């Protein structure tokens, strides 16, 4: 499932899949404005058929946070 996650991030944030690391977030990804942050969460919800609570949404500060919340919802993410 990591591949799908990376694909969505790459698509929304317009960055190359190979450059995505856990540490990346709004400070390091140029396109990650508050609006693109919503778009990303929205695409993830549709792509993985999950719903983020407002606390989870507020908590996302980097890619690692996204992975953690997806894992908590039973989605298998490697790495």
């Amino acid at each position: 499932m990591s591949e799908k996650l990376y694909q969505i991030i790459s698509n929304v944030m317009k960055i190359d899949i190979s450059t995505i690391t856990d540490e990346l977030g709004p400070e390091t990804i140029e396109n990650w404005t508050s609006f693109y942050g919503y778009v990303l969460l929205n695409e993830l919800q549709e792509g993985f058929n999950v719903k983020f609570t407002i606390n989870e949404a507020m908590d996302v500060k980097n890619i690692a946070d996204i992975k953690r919340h997806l894992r908590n919802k039973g989605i298998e993410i490697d790495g």
Partner: protein
Amino acid sequence: MSKENSLSYYINNSKEISEVLDRKIRIGLLSSFTINGLKEILEVKSAERNISCMIYEAPYNQYSQEILNQNSNLYKFLPEITFLIIDTRTILGNNFRFPYSISNTDRKKFVAKKINEIINLADQFVEKTNSKLVISKLNIPAFSPNGIFESKIEYGFHSMIEDFNHKLIKNFLNSENVYIYDLEKFVAKNGEDNVFDYNQFFFGDLKISMEFLPALGQDLMKYVIGFLGITKKCIVLDLDNTLWGGIVGEDGFNGIKLGPEPPGNTFMEFQRILLSLHQRGIILAINSKNNFEDAIKVIEDHPYMILKEEHFTSMRINWKDKVSNMKEIIQEINIGSDSLIFIDDDPVNREFVKSIFPEILVVDLSNDSSTYASTIENIIDFSVLKITEEDKNRGKMYKKQKVINELQESTPDLQTFLSQLDLKIIIKEVDEFTLPRVSQLILKTNQFNLTTKRYQESDIKTMIKDPNFIVCCAQVTDKFGDNGVTGVFIIKKENHKEWQIDTFLMSCRIMGKDIEKGIMTFIINKAKENNIETIKADFLPTQKNKPIENFLPDNEFTKEGKSWTYVIKSEIKLPNYLSVKVE
């Protein structure tokens, strides 16, 4: 038609729009809440229709300032259409949650004050710009603190919003500049729980959720289509498995599915919607591979057939291929192929037509006939900002054209034929009654159009008021009746010796009757009366205006450089089969 794409599809694709597109539109976006993404949606949806879309997005909830300040960025941008999307929460403020903390008299006063604010803003806007303004109605939330008792309260929470919407519509009912977008119907169609997502609202102040922003953009595109006049005028239909279920050649008259029982009822409903569109001016035609006798028997005699022969302006029911038939239909109706919609259940036929005529809107019909009705309801390409009398009668007009064509075929030469028609041209100065139709002709006419200058109503009004312009239209009648306003010309008085033809156009349905000669004779004689010595004109060729390319030399204009000149000598005589009257 197809399911809407996701927001990121539009965001990604908006960056790759070609800059060379047929038409242009400038849109102003004002809102009382975050509508991030709507800009990209409108850009991509416009590009899909070959329109280059420039958008000014005001900072959110700054709409009053943008409208009231004469020097605002909105006005500097010179929008042609401006959308003002407002939401109930913002307009009602504290009264959104606590409407019953004040008396019913105070609720009425509050709504009166709010509606006056919006009307005042709209009036100011109209004064300061030529842009059309589209204001959204307020959505009525399902919830009320009173629950089911809500409808027992005089001027309650829901009534406040209904009253606001009602007053908004009533105030601008006859306005040519302000339109009301029915956001309430948008929410009704898509569902409040879908369109409004509390999670997105709390997290990002989104009052229309991201998933439904593309559908909102689709709705707003209707105004762009109507404004640019790129409306579809004619639906070309297949028969078997499109207007009825089954194949008449195999299943027979009694075997096809058409009637009150399912699935016959799906086809009846589909036909009813087509008829309702026909009644407001959409032309219908048939393009079907069938035995003519089998098919026409169903059309004429089947008890559950809603559409009858009289509703079809052109019928091609034979064994020729769909593209050849399409070419004949286009020729017979004398219509631009870009005004057509093609509906056929067979994907192979659809692909074939699409490959030869990419400009035709080919509808992707699903193989479930219960979806036909909604498919056609969701086509936005019939949108017009105004429905004129000519629109309503269009079907009949084209039908009449068919009779005329038959008369022409049975008459030995053109002059004899024309003299039998009793043609009369009535020239009128454009006024408030003819303006909507004139504007429509200026925006839509492609073929018999000398300069293809696209003026909006406001531009035409300015020219009417300017003594240096003559803005006239021509109404044409013949022995079969009135064709309505079908010609327009605009003359610019360059100086006391020279006139310039700025615009000369005629609807294609009156082409081939020398009407243009009649109008030109009128212009020349009028110029002579005014002691004008030369008339100048330009022919600006486009991909579509070939029919008018010989118009200037045919009327004895001579080419000088890029422009054409007519030197006025004596008065000229009208062909004897035409009469011209001035009103």
